[in-house]
């Protein structure tokens, strides 16, 4: 299998997996919200500690937001994967292009631009 085809297949499966997994989390989150009748999103701080390590069966909205984060992370993962593939191929221009898109996203999020 040549490298372009490998990248294509990897990207294709990565995207599909991400959508499915996040969809599953959202269905579970909504289901738990209905089942428990616990409509309270946390009134305090909504941290990712809370999203990742909180007890999902106590606060169903954790599960919901984990689903959102996985979904939004999926296209970003696609960039990480293709940047790596381009680096391996020594296609430096495109590796740089991928990395700069990723950097723009991460830096703007960390700095709270927008």
């Amino acid at each position, binding site marked *: 299998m040549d490298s372009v085809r490998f990248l294509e297949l990897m990207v294709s499966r990565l995207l*599909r997996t991400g959508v499915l997994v996040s969809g599953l989390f959202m269905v579970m989150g909504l289901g738990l919200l209905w089942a428990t009748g616990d409509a309270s*999103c946390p009134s305090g*701080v909504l941290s990712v500690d809370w999203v990742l390590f909180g007890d999902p069966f106590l606060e169903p909205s954790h599960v919901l937001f984990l689903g959102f984060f996985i979904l939004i992370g999926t296209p970003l993962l*696609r960039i990480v994967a293709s940047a790596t593939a381009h680096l391996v191929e020594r296609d430096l221009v495109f590796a740089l292009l991928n990395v700069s898109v990723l950097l*723009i996203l991460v830096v703007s999020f960390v700095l709270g631009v*927008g």
Partner: protein
Amino acid sequence: MAVYWVIFGCFLVEVLFYAVFFKISRLSALLQRVICFNGAPRGMQLLFTLYALTIALGSGFLGALLGLGGGVIMVPLMVFLLGVPIHMASGASIVAVVATSSAAASVYVRDEVTNMRLGMFLELATTLGALTGASFMAMAAESLLKTVFGLSLIYASTVMWYQLRNNRRSWVNKPNDWLAERLSIGGSYYDEARGEQISYGVTRTMGTFGISYVAGIVSGLLGIGGGGIKVPAMNVVSSVPMKVAVATSNFMIGVTAAASALVYIRHGFCDGFVTAPVVLGTLVGSYIGARVTGRLRGMFLKRVFVAVLLLLGLRMIASGVGL
């Protein structure tokens, strides 16, 4: 097999990234403005979720049939039928756009229609644009957003009308310009209708790059995909074949919408109760739509929707300027 290991590794990286990244920077405080429809009684919430799910199912289905993104139809319906503030409707829509474009891109990339190199190049412009647009969104008043959204609906209606008039626009292959040559962006794809491999070049790359930036702004501002701007740009300005333009635009929208979605989440415009049913509904609706669209001739539907989009646009503008 190797493919699955890479995917597994990627997801591991993602989880680690969230864990480390969020602990270090204490971004948690930024997310606390996420609102839920907390005060409403439980029955109301259930009903609201069901309404939102139905609206999203319908607009996802229609969007796939008409070749529009789901957001263009869904946001006005959420605003007019459910009384959701437009910021929040757009926030739900932009997350749904990430989902549908990723799902569609998965198929296009597998079938080798997408020009990934062109997509990765233009992504730089759309991402910057999306951040610009989403920043404007956070500051913009409800009335302004409604007016701009109304204008974009009228634009979508005009494009659809134009497509109905000029159904078979002849496509001419042009050679790569210097930049496309330098980045080796030109490509080829297998056209099923013609039964042959078609090679194409990419001209006026910088022009399309500029338009992609504008498309990014619109996407971030309104919470829609913005394919309605990128596809004509690639097709008309850069003479990329239509099918490749659609697939490549879709490929870019995932990252563009993810960039905007992060801004929407940070400002608390992604409400769990609005967003989750909208994402799930749009995903299922557009999946069914994509299955059905091969068997259906969408001409009549398109004629109807030229009018529907125009009316929705006018109503949106009227509501925006306070009529």
